[in-house]
């Protein structure tokens, strides 16, 4: 029987899952993914992690526990960096140690250190070394790497066609060969949803923010829908080089959208206590405000209620609609703009 490798459906699942899945499966392991986040996973995570950890990390704990008894190996990598001279987040760097010192009764953990700070070669070396745990043939491991990179590229390409990571994963799984562009419905506004992918694409965590915006007639664009080269190029313009990979991409996307004028507003989704976001969200807000771009910041934690988020999103979309109608004019003496127009 093949080895069962457990991958939690949290954090970097939303960025690198196709790579890991292809890599492990090529080497003959079976990949087991935890179920989509639900109330139970959240509750367990909140109970087992420290209070101050951010929501995605708490949920990660829950996913690890839900996999605990179903797999032979847990894949909890230490993602220090996935590109040169940029980190992910301090919490990612301590994650396996955090898990190990709080949870007990876990199956063996694969905690390799992925560190590309000093270049991509070191990263590849780590992956190949990881493969040697599953298979002794170096050639096969090398081929697994090639296969994994191909899958990852396909996944990233699908996203630039307008698919979200979840949709892209589904397309990959169904093995649809023809890469159709995503069908686009009629929409009244195009809104950029910014934030860390593991927050905005986890429907349970983000309280269906994207779905609600779609229901309100908005088309969604995210940083993941833009090619990485473009994001890098825009982020280069920052006065100081951003040293968080995700932060760089979010800011790059924000700068691109501010220049391209295809976007009507920014919805920034963050979680309570996110370190990088406290800087990135504030910078994004400042840049947006200077250009007159509507901006809303939604901060989530385990106490957030969906109704509250819906109300705020509705107000935001209403505001966008009025803005379009009245060319950003609002009466300064409290009279409703609509009445002004109807009387004149």
């Amino acid at each position: 029987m093949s080895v069962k490798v457990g991958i939690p459906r949290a954090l970097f699942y939303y960025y690198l899952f196709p790579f890991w899945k292809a890599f492990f499966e090529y080497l003959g392991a079976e990949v087991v993914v935890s179920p989509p986040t639900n109330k139970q996973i959240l509750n367990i995570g909140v109970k087992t992690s420290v209070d101050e950890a951010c929501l995605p990390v708490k949920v990660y704990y829950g996913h690890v526990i839900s996999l605990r008894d179903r797999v032979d190996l847990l894949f909890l990598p230490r993602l220090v960096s996935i590109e040169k001279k940029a980190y992910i987040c301090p919490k990612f760097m301590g994650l396996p140690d955090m898990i190990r010192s709080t949870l007990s009764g876990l199956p063996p953990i694969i905690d390799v250190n992925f560190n590309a700070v000093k270049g991509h070669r070191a990263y590849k070396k780590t992956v190949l070394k990881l493969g040697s745990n599953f298979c002794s043939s170096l050639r096969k491991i090398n081929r697994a790497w090639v296969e994994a990179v191909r899958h990852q590229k396909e996944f990233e390409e699908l996203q630039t066609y307008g698919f979200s990571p979840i949709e892209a994963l589904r397309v990959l799984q169904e093995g649809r060969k023809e890469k159709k562009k995503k069908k686009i419905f009629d929409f009244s506004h195009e809104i950029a949803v910014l934030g860390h992918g593991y927050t905005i694409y986890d429907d349970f965590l983000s309280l269906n923010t994207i779905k609600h915006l779609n229901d309100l007639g908005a088309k969604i664009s995210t940083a993941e829908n833009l090619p990485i080269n473009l994001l890098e190029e825009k982020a280069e313009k920052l006065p100081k080089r951003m040293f968080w990979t995700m932060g760089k991409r979010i800011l790059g996307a924000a700068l691109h959208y501010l220049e391209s004028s295809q976007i009507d507003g920014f919805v920034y989704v963050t979680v309570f206590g996110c370190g990088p976001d406290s800087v990135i969200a504030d910078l994004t807000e400042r840049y947006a405000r200077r250009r007159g771009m509507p901006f809303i910041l939604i901060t989530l934690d385990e106490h957030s209620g969906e109704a509250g988020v819906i109300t705020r999103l509705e107000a935001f979309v209403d505001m966008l609609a009025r803005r379009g109608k009245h060319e950003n004019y609002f009466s300064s003496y409290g009279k409703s703009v609509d009445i002004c127009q109807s009387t004149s």
Partner: protein
Amino acid sequence: MKITFPHMGNLWISAKVLLEGLGLEVVVPPPCTKKTLSLGVLHAPEFICLPLKINLGNYMEAAEKGADTIIIAGGRGPCRFGYYCRLEKEILDDLGYEFRMIVLEPPENNFLEVIQNIRALSKCSMFQMINAVRTAWFKCCAVDEVEKKVQIVRAWESCPGLADKIYREALKNIDKAQTIKEIFFAKLNVLEAFNDVPVEPEREVIRLALVGEIYTILEPFANQNIERHLGKLGAEVKRSIYLSSWVNDHLLGSILPMESTKEACRMSSPYLNYFVGGHGKETVGSAVKFSREGFDGIIQIAPLTCGPEIVAESILSKVSFSEKIPVMTIYMDEQSGEAGLITRLEAFVDMIRRKKLSQKTATRK
């Protein structure tokens, strides 16, 4: 050009003499108060860590005194501090301040880069510069020596408050001293004065270690004077970070034989096996080190939402269990109150005293 810098504990004494020695005009921001913090909280992002909020207040108060240039350290991540310089500049720009920002990016383990950075600031001679660095360094060491002394004397003194009075006086004298000789004698006088403080030798004093994020453990305003409160409760205090050893470790490449956090970093394994930015690894390592040195308890202090310290906090529970030492974590932010802190400290100290007492009776039996 009137230059200013953010407060961090007694850093201002060394920073002032260094910059003045380079022939620059220095504006030391007024000491941190509630007003400083309120100014910062008003304009900083909601979830940014406490140091930025206080820094921002410092700049705004320094601007009232005429400062127009800020000097601050940079960073390459993954800790948020590395982006402070940029974020602060954007905030100050939006508020209409016209500050020039000089960012000292960290050298890659090369002391020459530090010298080049400093040289770029002013056109003073090499001799002048070396002199300024030397004086600043001696002041830094003198202040740390005095701090270490007061942290112990506070726990033993029979009339509380006397040690702090001497301490405040000492800082003033060290600040006033111009030459290395004067600094030396100022320090000597203080250490003698501390020896004359009346003490209660039969007091049951415990030893506590403070670990955590550098700003919150160095700046008394940010940690609600935790060292003084612990002293009053009869606890000797030692910190994991002192300014002089930090400078030696990070700017001088550990060339001087001093107490170093590098050793502590090594001791963080097997609990934490990787560097996590900020002072996360030092926190875990120091906790292990202090518990093996026979300290009675450890208090971790950090600003709320500090990533590296959250990692450390998760791991400290394991350290506490395996090394058999009580550990308490305290997060600081603008909502922290001094009375609440004192209650927690009292409970922690009481618990340690009881533990010691029960151990003593157990061994007697």
